[in-house]
């Protein structure tokens, strides 16, 4: 992170409390958020409500090339998320669908579509895919004959791939051909309720390398916080604190705070196929932050302005939920 704001007010990331290896509190990582009244809740599925399945329209156009079927790639993508350590994500493949227009997608299916031409974004080659996630408030119909058990419950999620973009199923994107599995793994994170992150190595970073099929520690912290497994595969804790301006002591909203390991240890066994990365969150309007899903290790905590490569514009869900403007008028600080 650049130090171009040196003339600005300095910042202190005050670790008001550091609590490792404690049960994660209720609030979470960087999920997509819904504001209901004065409450801000993380969007998530209620797996106890109805079976959550993805429904593939197997039809593909000539823009999908490669030796693997699109169906096998999508299955591999969901396998990646459902096998994430510490997470309980019982999402399975449902019946295939012939729906070929997003506007016609029924409320009770979660459509994966390669031939839906009705979305305005499909006219842009710069947009590869979008995920449209529907949430409702508690007591609202869940579209499956029941009602939502909590605010922010996801009841439907559709992933629409741009029919005018070239994808390969071979696992390696190059030039103008996009790797389907990389794109789909990111979109499946949105399907499950994950928002973008500021950790560049994470699959949920808004801009990724040409080929990335595995989750990072940051991704796993997010998904396991949203959907914690009853008995964790690997014990994790949380790190909490407050980001304040030096001098004025004013709270800093929207600081990108991350825990970066200072060791070469791999607290998640390699069998889980996770990429070690920092684990991050953003500070709330009162300056507090809570980094969850942190495995035992040695960490340095960094608070940095969200001024690139991810910027305040990349997390509109966070800013619209909390209101106000994310602050970037400080320099990076390590603790």
């Amino acid at each position, binding site marked *: 992170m650049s130090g171009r704001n040196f003339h600005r007010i300095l910042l202190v990331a005050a670790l008001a409390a550091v609590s490792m290896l404690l049960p994660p509190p209720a609030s979470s990582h960087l999920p997509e958020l819904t504001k209901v009244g004065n409450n801000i809740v993380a969007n998530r599925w209620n797996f106890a409500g109805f079976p959550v399945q993805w429904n593939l329209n197997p039809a593909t156009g000539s823009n999908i090339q490669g030796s693997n079927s699109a169906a096998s790639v999508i299955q591999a993508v969901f396998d990646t998320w459902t096998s994430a350590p510490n997470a309980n994500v019982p999402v399975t493949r449902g019946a295939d669908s012939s729906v070929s227009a997003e506007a016609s997608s029924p409320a009770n299916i979660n459509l994966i579509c390669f031939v839906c031409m009705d979305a305005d*974004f499909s006219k842009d080659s710069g947009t590869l895919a979008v995920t*449209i996630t529907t949430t409702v408030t508690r007591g609202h119909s869940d579209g499956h004959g029941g009602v939502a058990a909590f605010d922010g419950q996801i009841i439907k999620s559709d992933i629409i791939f741009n029919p005018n973009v070239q994808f390969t199923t071979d696992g390696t994107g190059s030039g103008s051909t996009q790797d389907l599995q990389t794109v789909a793994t990111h979109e499946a994170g949105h399907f499950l309720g994950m928002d973008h992150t500021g950790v560049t190595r994470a699959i949920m970073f808004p801009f990724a390398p040409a080929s990335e099929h595995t989750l990072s520690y940051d991704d796993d912290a997010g998904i396991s916080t949203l959907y914690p497994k009853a008995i964790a595969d690997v014990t994790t804790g949380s790190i909490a604190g407050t980001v304040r301006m030096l001098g004025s002591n004013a709270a800093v909203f929207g600081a990108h705070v991350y825990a970066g390991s200072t060791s070469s240890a791999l607290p998640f066994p390699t069998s889980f196929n996770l990429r070690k990365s920092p684990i991050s969150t953003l500070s709330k309007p009162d300056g507090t932050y809570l980094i969850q899903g942190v495995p035992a290790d040695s960490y340095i905590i960094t608070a940095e302005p969200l001024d690139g490569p991810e910027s305040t514009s990349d997390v509109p869900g966070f800013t619209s939920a909390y209101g106000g403007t994310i602050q970037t008028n400080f320099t990076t600080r390590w603790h």
Partner: protein
Amino acid sequence: MMSPIRTRVIRKYLLPLFILASTPLLLGTSMVPMPVEALTQNAALIMQGEATRSWSQWNDQHSLIYTYTEFTVARTLKGQAPAKVVVKQLGGSVDGTTQHVSGVRYWPAGEEAVLFLRPSEAKDGTHVVVGLVQGNFRVERLSSGEVRVSNGVPEVQWLNAAGEQSVSQSTPMTLHDLENRIQRAQRLSQ
């Protein structure tokens, strides 16, 4: 020692290939970063304006929620715009149901933006943002008097027609720089 002919061949053909191969491609998982020049080419209308009001409603099939934002047009940088333009975006909230599209930014009343737009495929008189979100540059007026714009997209590197490496200025950039690039892109496309 390398001969002059060989050197020219390397400059003309191999160097661009080497640069292309060695340039980290910022391929988005949901977006490919579009430089201002590409946004300009793909836009029928580029305007600077201020959001005055917005509302969300279901489509006719009651399957998708769209948010509509009305802008008062301050000036036009490409194309012709009426005094008011309505921009349509996927997502929004209606009666306890919310549809989310990660990365899509909506505009509160009073927010100023430079927008790269094209008519909606629905032909309903509304416009959509080119590149889903990339053609949406938030305008920020600093106390120093400088006006900055940003669409949240990181730096883009590519090879131009001459095979030279170009690097688009990462956002935020000044409004003046954005205007210059839009004008240059329009001149080149004529």
